[in-house]
């Protein structure tokens, strides 16, 4: 109280100073890199509306259509033999293609990130090739190579090996299309980590193999898991390339995406959406896991390192 009495004479001055300070404070609250509130509101609304129409609504539609005829019909569509066989084939193909690409991806990322050699940038370009090639073309490549009229066709026929219109073809096409996911996730992370930890391990007497298991792998494990998730999602959902090489033999070479297409073309809308809902569910689970990974292990993920 006494202070206020003492300062009464200067009170107007103080009031002005406080106002000026408040003004400075409000100005500081909007940094130079931030736009005005109106513009922000418009941009956020635009983005939200876009996401709603193009991502959320279709997703809701899938589940809505799938469940429209009731739970019983939904499960009937999923447990029908052809559907079961499609699910089984998709899981089988992913179970073969994903581990293969994990191996290839780690090997490629290891070579590119830890060693210097001629043609390195060419190898990086090659790894990206599946991203830039249309999946249909990818499928056709295998038909041209392994089909009956293809390059290795006569040889394969003579030995009674069926590649095209059979599981091996589907696996090959899937491996091709999903090849970059693991490698692309690992390369930037491993490049930013350098070879220092490995050198330390070597000077401490560890063999190359031990070094990989005990030093390199722990350093990349979250990025690897992330890459595996993306790779798996793509492997299960791949349509174009698989469509070309599979031959659409029901109960034999039909994967889930192909099965959805067939059902849809037969106007069996609800069954089509029932199977599609499984794929959508897979996407959601992948997305959720990926987000959790990012929240808990963000700094160890490749994507983060790339952004730095």
């Amino acid at each position, binding site marked *: 109280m006494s202070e206020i009495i003492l300062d009464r004479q200067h009170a107007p001055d103080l009031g002005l100073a406080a106002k000026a300070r408040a003004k400075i404070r409000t100005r500081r609250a909007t940094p130079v890199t931030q736009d005005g509130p109106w513009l922000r509101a418009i941009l956020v609304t635009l983005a939200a509306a876009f996401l709603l129409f193009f991502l959320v609504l279709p997703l809701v539609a899938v589940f809505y259509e799938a469940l429209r005829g009731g739970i019983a019909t939904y499960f009937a569509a999923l447990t029908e033999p052809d559907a079961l066989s499609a699910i089984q084939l998709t899981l089988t193909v992913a179970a073969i293609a994903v581990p293969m690409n994990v191996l290839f991806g780690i090997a490629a990322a290891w070579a590119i990130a830890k060693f210097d050699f001629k043609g390195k940038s060419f190898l990086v370009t090659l790894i990206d090739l599946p991203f830039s090639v249309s999946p249909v073309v990818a499928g056709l490549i295998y038909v041209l190579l392994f089909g009956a009229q293809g390059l290795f066709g006569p040889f394969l026929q003579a030995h009674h090996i069926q590649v095209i219109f059979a599981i091996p073809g589907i696996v090959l096409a899937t491996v091709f299309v999903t090849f970059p996911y693991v490698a692309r996730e690992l390369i930037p992370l491993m490049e930013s980590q350098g070879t220092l930890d490995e050198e330390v391990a070597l*000077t401490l007497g*560890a063999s190359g193999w031990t070094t990989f298991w005990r030093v390199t792998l722990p350093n990349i494990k979250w990025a690897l898991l992330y890459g595996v998730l993306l790779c798996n999602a793509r492997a299960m959902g791949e349509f174009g390339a698989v469509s070309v090489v599979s031959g659409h033999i029901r109960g034999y070479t039909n994967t889930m995406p192909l099965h959805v297409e067939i059902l849809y073309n037969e106007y069996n809308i609800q069954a089509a959406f029932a199977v599609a809902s499984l794929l959508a569910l897979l996407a959601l689970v992948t997305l959720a896991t990926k987000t959790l990974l990012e929240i808990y292990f963000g700094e160890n993920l490749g994507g983060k390192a790339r952004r730095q």
Partner: protein
Amino acid sequence: MQVRAQNIIKRFDGGPGNAALDDVSLDVGSGELVALLGPSGSGKTTLLRVIAGLEQANSGQVFFGDEDASQKSVQERRVGFVFQNYALFKHMTIAENIAFGLEVRTRGTRPPKAEIKRRVLELLDLVQLSGLDKRRPAQLSGGQRQRVALARALAVEPKVLLLDEPFGALDAKVRRDLRRWLREIHDRTGHTTIFVTHDQDEALELADRVAVLSKGKIEQIGTPDDIYDHPATPFVHDFIGEASSLPVVARDGSFWLGAERIGLPVLGGQAGQGRLFVRPQDVVFDQAGGIPAEVVAVRRTGAARRAEIAFPALGGERVEINAPAALNFQPGETLPVRFMRGTFYPG
């Protein structure tokens, strides 16, 4: 364990151009602490890495004792290597980091678990970090991490200890403390130790002998006193301590600065043109019959005052000398100076 590097040549581009190491030989006695000192790009780290086996030399040999280690792998050489940025394994605890070298041994040679644990605690004690065994590297300060890195290197009972700019990433105060501490550890464990540094104070204070490198060659190797007091080449004189140089002529038993005679005797029958290197304390202001020099600038460097002086006969060549605080003068004045000491390099 004695370490010898013999005629090491290392080229990074593979071509015949500038070699990172150009026919370098180095002898390090058993239990000795040797510093490799030089500016960046002088090849000091490369030499250390060649000795460790992390780099393959294009030619030359590395001996540990009488044994030729040139063809041996890093693992077989059993060196303790400490890196500049600690390089602790982030996903392991401090204890796991230190135990790593013992844990990765093959089944027959690996010590039992209890023994490894005992060794780890013993080493933590040696580097004065007892009680931190369960921490992660991220929870330690820079100085502590570097001590863990040293403990980890010592855990494998290395034949030699190699340190690459061990204190380079630390701040000045921690550096000085760790320097003294490293010397103590060395005296206690008696490992043959080679360390790389670009900090001459560190090298002169810590090492038994210092090897000064420049452009892939060893310019001089000797005790810190040798290096500082008797620099063998102009480069060493320039690099170690402060020095400036002047073009002089050795003639008739004297050095001549233009037409002025410098009162320093010529030793060993040297003659002809060359450069005279002087340290700031080697040239003094002297009213009684010195060589006239113009004071160009006066600077303050810590406790001392420095004067930059120029000799009219030589144009732009300048020399930096100590100026007593008592002496009162201004830039632009001409004062007589006397040469007390200097080192002459012909050429």
